[in-house]
């Protein structure tokens, strides 16, 4: 961990900004990409700022903190930058520390090289950040995700499909829906022209043709055939049609194709792609939803525990964790046993780590993880080989203790609480281990099953 970061100041021209001591000044992005800075401060107008930040993100600074020395806004900077430089330049240091710690704990300290790793690292290193689409009205697809674009090592990746994949893997959560696009089946362009055409010959040269209905003889024909010397006369019965509603009316307004002379009521609507000229039926168009994306709980867990490892490989795995369903089945089985053999005693214990997240942020990711590791290995020592463990939430651990009565349960509880006291992070405010238990058959209520018991216990723990 470096104590004082290298701060680069990028300003091509003379600037009014008082550059603090120790900051390196650069005039071009090219110079900056040759150097090795930790934090970058840019003093450029909006347009230059956006250009510079895109270049920097694509270079050796994909994840570094980048501030603007001037007030800056716009969706692009909001997405790729880290906001305005704090007024007190000293405040950069704690921000940098936090960023560095989080990045250090990401993926067990492995360097991020793939798109997936970089984007996850970005979202991990900046809590509460999200992938926000930015409008690009002139593009064939009028939205793009600047972060995915700049953090992609090659241009072949399709950000939309990639995001969908990440979402299917459970790493990204769908956020606010911002727009819905209809895209050409062939080229995915949204530049479509919806055009009404003749349903018979598909030409666009169609025209509305008002028709008249003669009340006297019931003749219906296009209006032109009724017009005679500036008056209306039925071509069939030669009656003068003088007044709408009493002599004639307009029963229908058909369309006529000027190319094939077809008469029709409803035209066919086609979506013509202006880019590839493909003709789509409107119902065949691809529908794309434009949303914000953020990290899911699972995504955060993977960031912390390493992207290559699966869930079972986490610290708590040393406790021989079984899945929730299996745990509940076992508990139900134990309940049935106690119903059948009254002397049979079984205990259930819930351990909740309160404010784990906040405590970890305080002590740093690495310190927190080390502390949890310690605690888990001590719990392992305290329980028996025949006990079973599961976890229903990240911070809620369940122990099923067969052949354990209330005294045995209380003894275990005290030991766990003592162990928790020994943890280095326990001194910090907020972090607390809460343990509660339940013993069959003494405390059992009629009709209760595993689900209800676990819900009742977690309710007592406030989880």
């Amino acid at each position: 961990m470096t104590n004082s970061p290298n701060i680069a100041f990028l300003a091509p021209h003379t600037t009014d900004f008082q550059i603090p001591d120790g900051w390196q000044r650069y005039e071009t992005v090219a110079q900056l990409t040759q150097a090795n800075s930790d934090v970058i401060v840019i003093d450029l107008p909006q347009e230059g700022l956006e250009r510079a930040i895109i270049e920097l993100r694509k270079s050796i600074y994909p994840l570094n903190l980048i501030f603007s020395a001037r007030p800056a806004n716009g969706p692009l900077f909001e997405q790729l930058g880290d906001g305005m430089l704090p007024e007190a330049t000293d405040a950069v240091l704690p921000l940098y520390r936090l960023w560095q710690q989080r990045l250090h704990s990401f993926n067990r300290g492995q360097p991020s090289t793939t798109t997936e790793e970089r984007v996850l690292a970005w979202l991990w290193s900046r809590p509460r950040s999200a992938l926000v689409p930015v409008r690009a009205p002139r593009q064939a697809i009028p939205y793009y995700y600047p972060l995915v674009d700049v953090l992609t090592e090659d241009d072949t990746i399709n950000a939309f499909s990639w995001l969908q994949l990440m979402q299917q893997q459970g790493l990204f959560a769908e956020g606010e829906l911002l727009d819905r696009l209809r895209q050409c089946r062939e080229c995915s362009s949204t530049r479509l022209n919806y055009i009404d055409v003749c349903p018979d010959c598909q030409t666009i040269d169609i025209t509305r043709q008002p028709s008249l209905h003669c009340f006297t003889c019931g003749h219906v024909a296009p209006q032109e055939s009724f017009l005679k010397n500036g008056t209306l006369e039925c071509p069939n019965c030669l009656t003068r049609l003088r007044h709408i509603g009493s002599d004639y009316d307009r029963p229908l307004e058909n369309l006529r194709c000027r190319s094939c002379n077809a008469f029709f009521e409803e035209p066919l609507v086609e979506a013509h792609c202006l880019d590839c000229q493909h003709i789509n039926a409107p119902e065949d168009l691809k529908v794309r939803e434009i949303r914000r994306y953020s990290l899911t709980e699972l995504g955060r867990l993977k960031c912390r525990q390493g992207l290559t490892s699966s869930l079972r490989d986490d610290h708590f795995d040393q406790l021989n964790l079984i899945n929730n369903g299996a745990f509940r089945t076992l508990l139900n089985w134990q309940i049935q046993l106690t119903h059948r053999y009254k002397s049979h005693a079984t205990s259930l214990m819930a351990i909740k780590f309160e404010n784990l997240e906040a405590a970890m942020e305080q002590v740093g990711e690495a310190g927190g993880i080390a502390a949890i590791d310690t605690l888990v290995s001590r719990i392992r020592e305290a329980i028996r080989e025949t006990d079973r463990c599961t976890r229903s939430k990240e911070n809620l651990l369940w122990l099923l203790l067969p052949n354990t009565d209330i005294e045995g349960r209380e003894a275990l509880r005290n030991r766990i609480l003592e162990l928790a006291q020994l943890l280095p992070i326990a001194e910090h405010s907020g972090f607390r281990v809460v343990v509660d238990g339940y013993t069959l058959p003494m405390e059992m209520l009629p009709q209760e099953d595993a689900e209800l018991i676990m819900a009742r216990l977690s309710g007592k723990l406030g989880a």
Partner: protein
Amino acid sequence: METIVQAASQIAGEIFGNGGLSEWLLRLFPFFILLELPVYLLIFVGVLRWKLRERHRIPPSRLYTPKVSCIVTCYSEGAETVITLKSLCEQLYPGVLEIIPVVDGASINRETLAAIEGFRVDPHLHPRRTIRPLAKWQRGGRVSSLNAGLHHATGDIVLALDGDTSFDNDMVSQIVQHFADPNVPAVSGNLRVRNRNDSLVARIQALEYLLSIQMSKIGLGEWNTINNISGAFGAFRRKLLTRIGGWDTHTAEDLDITLRIKSYYGRHHFRIPFEPRAIGHTDVPTTFRQFLMQRLRWDGDLYFLFVRKHQRNLSPRLMGWPDFLMTLVTGLFFQLVMPFLIVSYLVVGFILMPLSTIAFVAVLIYSVYFAITLTLYLACLLLVSERPREDLKLLPLVPLFPVFMLVIRCWGVVCTLNEALRRGHEESSMAPWWVIKRGKKF
């Protein structure tokens, strides 16, 4: 005529002997009929003349197509206004038509306003038709609606139309062609009864519109002595309208503006034609009581306009001799004096004459009027009517028509007295009282 009278006198003499009373009556009998006959003759000749001209008429020019603004005054007609607007959109006129429906008292006539605002002109079906509704939130009367519409109108020709009147699709083409003559300041349109099948009262009014309005206006129009441009359907040159200050407050704004335009006849070669082929279909009162109330207003307004408001306008210097004389006879004498004569005759007759004499004279008078009615009706059917089939259905009403006219004449006395003694025009429903109160008193 004299021979007929002599013959009748002979017959009567044979019946009554040489009684002085019947002779005196017979001398009295032709007195007012003889005054009416020349006018009927004039009308009849006018209709014949129109028919002759009509046969050699060139179809409406498609070259003269000025922009036309249609001011449609609406009040509580509701969805019925849509029929009017639709019939205007359907016009075959090749020029631009600007439709301005003006809703008077829009804050209370929500239904009418909603119907108009919901009406859309399909630019593909009806090109060159625009609709610009005006909502007058505060009620101000028909005159204020017309003037508001006139203020927003941009067409060269302005049509003043009623919201309960719809039009044949060649109406605008027919009426506009007259304006090609720069001496035409206004044209009167032809009205037919739309709801003629609603009741007997409506049916007999349909016949009245056909004979007394359509036929007589064709006849009078031929001699450029048209009596009135109907409020429900008139066409004006906008320049002239704005120059004479639009419509004037008070009731009967249609006759008022007609008389005001006519007062230029003496100085200009103006001509107000009647176009029987420009046809509007309007609703008439369906009950007898409603009918009498409408006539109370109409005939009372005649007295108000001729005697009170336009007394000084009625001069040959302003109107020109032909129109002055015609107004004197048809307007003042027939409408205001004749009813009194007829009623007096009736009263005196009933007092002085024996019942058999009354019956004879009644049959005689009836026969004369029936003959006139039948002649006019047949002439209308054969020469004028564009819907002869429909109008033929009114034939059974022809015998009833003279009686109907007698009732109208008698009611005319009430109307005139109501205006002369009670200033009935100030009770008009055509404008709210707070507007009428402020109008200049005549």
